[in-house]
């Protein structure tokens, strides 16, 4: 009877963990309760990890002589992996969050793949169903590992340009087919006990190798601005891999947690793709920049630059200002300066709101985090659907480092490659200022009709420098008034 206690404890701890994960994620539906949500989920994790050491009471006979070493190895791995990730997680800059999340995600995929590897190499998975699920989890986990690492390298700037070669899609398809075929060989060999040509373990190694290569090939051609979709996909895939390995290990906590994350990742993937007006398949399998350039409707008019100080003063005397920050703001590290300027406007009685496009930044919601870091209260930040009607009654819209997501061609020009993409209706504001480094085009490589509108002026320069001038101009007014 005593032998049952460890098993029961593990079962109860895992059950509690699964509940706390769901409860914690549910608490994340409001900024006010979200902090407690992640704490609750953390408690679940600690309980599950501590309880899993009770496995020592029920290890397989073959493992018993190694138990002492295995426990030491487990403690060292926990301390090393957990410690290093904790240390880096506490230090990483908020702008570098997308690559950090990609990295942690890849680690999860790798862990799922490693579990599958032990099950396969050790011949621990029995029966067609268990083998098939193990192989599937192994494939998805390995693809998620190598794909996430490539995504990390891209986001971190280690890989500068999307790597595109001729016939890439055919190569990717071939790599995928080869991986599946080798998986079939492993399955056949494990089921019949008669290996084909090579030893089963060799096939397993080749299988993992192919899956890793496929993950690399699949991610290399994808461009920087498509990263919100890519990160979401890999998050979903890792969740799926964890869920599948949970089934193999007969651990419902892993199954539930993995599948919840899989669903979450899928939902975010679809949201991001919708915000780009592209299908998920389009993001993954076609290269945006390579699409044949259609003849766009020509844009009449010219770009009219103004001084930053003039734009700043105009906003000071406006009643209502909406600011549209894009990735360019984060790239210039100008969030703090922007909020300093906003506080000046607020002190002068201007109503200021921030409008965020869903794909602003390199992962879903990154711009919201960067504004929060700069101290902007979350009730000043509005999402596309909630604020788009406001532009028509706005005196000044200030666009900083955003381009395609404010291009009215998405609404009006059927020939435009971004036609149909949901955009922020900045052009409907009475006056628009666009802060930009130069006259270049955005990610889609197309001219922006907004910039040529009668109500639009360009403020050229680095976002930091431009905002500094705006702040000085508004401060100067205050000083003049006081004198």
């Amino acid at each position, binding site marked *: *009877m005593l*032998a*049952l206690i460890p098993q029961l404890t593990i*079962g109860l701890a895992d059950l509690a963990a699964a509940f706390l994960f*769901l409860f*914690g994620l549910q608490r*994340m*539906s409001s900024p006010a309760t979200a*902090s407690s949500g*992640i*704490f609750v*989920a*953390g408690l679940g*994790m600690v309980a599950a*990890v501590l309880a*899993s050491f009770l496995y020592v009471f029920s*290890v397989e006979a073959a*493992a018993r002589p190694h138990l002492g070493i295995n426990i030491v*190895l487990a403690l060292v791995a*926990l301390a090393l*992996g*957990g410690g290093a*990730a*904790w240390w*880096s*997680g*506490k230090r990483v800059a908020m702008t570098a969050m997308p690559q950090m*999340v990609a990295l*942690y*995600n890849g*680690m*999860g995929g*790798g*862990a799922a793949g*490693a579990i599958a590897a*032990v099950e396969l*190499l050790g011949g621990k998975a029995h029966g067609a*169903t268990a083998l098939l699920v193990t192989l599937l989890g192994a494939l998805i986990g390995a693809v998620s590992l190598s794909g996430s690492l490539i995504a990390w390298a891209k986001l971190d700037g280690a890989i500068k340009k999307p790597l595109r070669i001729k016939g890439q899609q055919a190569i990717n398809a071939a790599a995928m087919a080869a991986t599946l075929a080798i998986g079939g060989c492993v399955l056949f060999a494990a089921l019949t006990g008669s290996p084909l040509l090579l030893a089963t373990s060799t096939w397993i190694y080749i299988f993992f190798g192919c899956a890793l290569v496929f993950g690399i090939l699949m991610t290399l051609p994808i461009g920087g601005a498509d990263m919100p979709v890519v990160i979401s996909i890999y998050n979903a895939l890792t969740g799926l891999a964890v*869920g599948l*390995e949970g089934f193999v*290990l*007969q*651990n419902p*906590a892993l*199954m539930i947690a*993995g599948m*919840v*994350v899989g*669903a*979450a990742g899928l*939902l975010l993937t679809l949201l991001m793709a919708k915000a780009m007006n592209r299908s998920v398949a389009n993001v993954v399998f076609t290269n945006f920049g390579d699409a044949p350039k259609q003849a766009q409707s020509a844009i009449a008019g010219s770009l009219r630059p103004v001084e930053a100080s003039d734009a700043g003063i105009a906003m000071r005397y406006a009643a209502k200002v909406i600011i549209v920050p894009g990735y360019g703001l984060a790239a210039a590290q100008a969030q703090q300066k922007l909020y300093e300027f906003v506080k000046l406007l607020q*002190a002068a*009685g201007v109503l200021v709101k921030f409008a*965020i496009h869903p794909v602003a930044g390199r*992962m879903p919601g990154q711009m*919201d*985090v960067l504004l929060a870091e700069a101290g902007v*209260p979350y009730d000043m930040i509005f*999402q596309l659907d909630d604020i788009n009607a406001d532009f028509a009654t706005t005196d000044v819209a200030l666009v900083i480092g955003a381009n395609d997501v404010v291009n009215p061609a998405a609404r009006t020009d059927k020939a435009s490659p971004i036609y149909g993409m949901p955009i922020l209706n900045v052009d409907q504001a009475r006056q628009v200022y666009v802060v930009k480094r130069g006259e270049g085009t955005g990610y889609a490589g197309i001219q922006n009709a907004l910039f040529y509108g009668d109500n639009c002026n360009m403020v050229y320069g680095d976002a930091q420098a431009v905002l500094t001038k705006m702040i000085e101009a508004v401060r100067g007014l205050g000083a003049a*008034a006081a004198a």
Partner: protein
Amino acid sequence: MSLDLGMTGFVALYVFMLAGFAGWVIIGHVPAILHTPLMSGSNFVHGIVVVGGLFVLLNASTTQQQIIGFAAVLLGAGNAAGGFAVTTRMLAMFKASDVQPKPARAPTHARVHHLKTH
């Protein structure tokens, strides 16, 4: 004597189905403003894979299994700890504007006043 806690076939599929559905509904209620912490938070949740890694490592009977099991625990622990660290950091930054004297209303008068003085 052992306890049969295993699940097979359709029971597993039901668990997958219900968990996926729960995830979809719960995540669907998270506002877009929290999508980054949500993603790193769900990233943290699949760090539960470390438990699977521990099971495999503790049951390892060959050097090969010990090495791969060690990697599984190492990576899984990194996933969980890192995901938790960045999520708590991000969520701590989200503040309401209560901390400041109401910016939207009161200063409107100041602006009118200011225009008058001009």
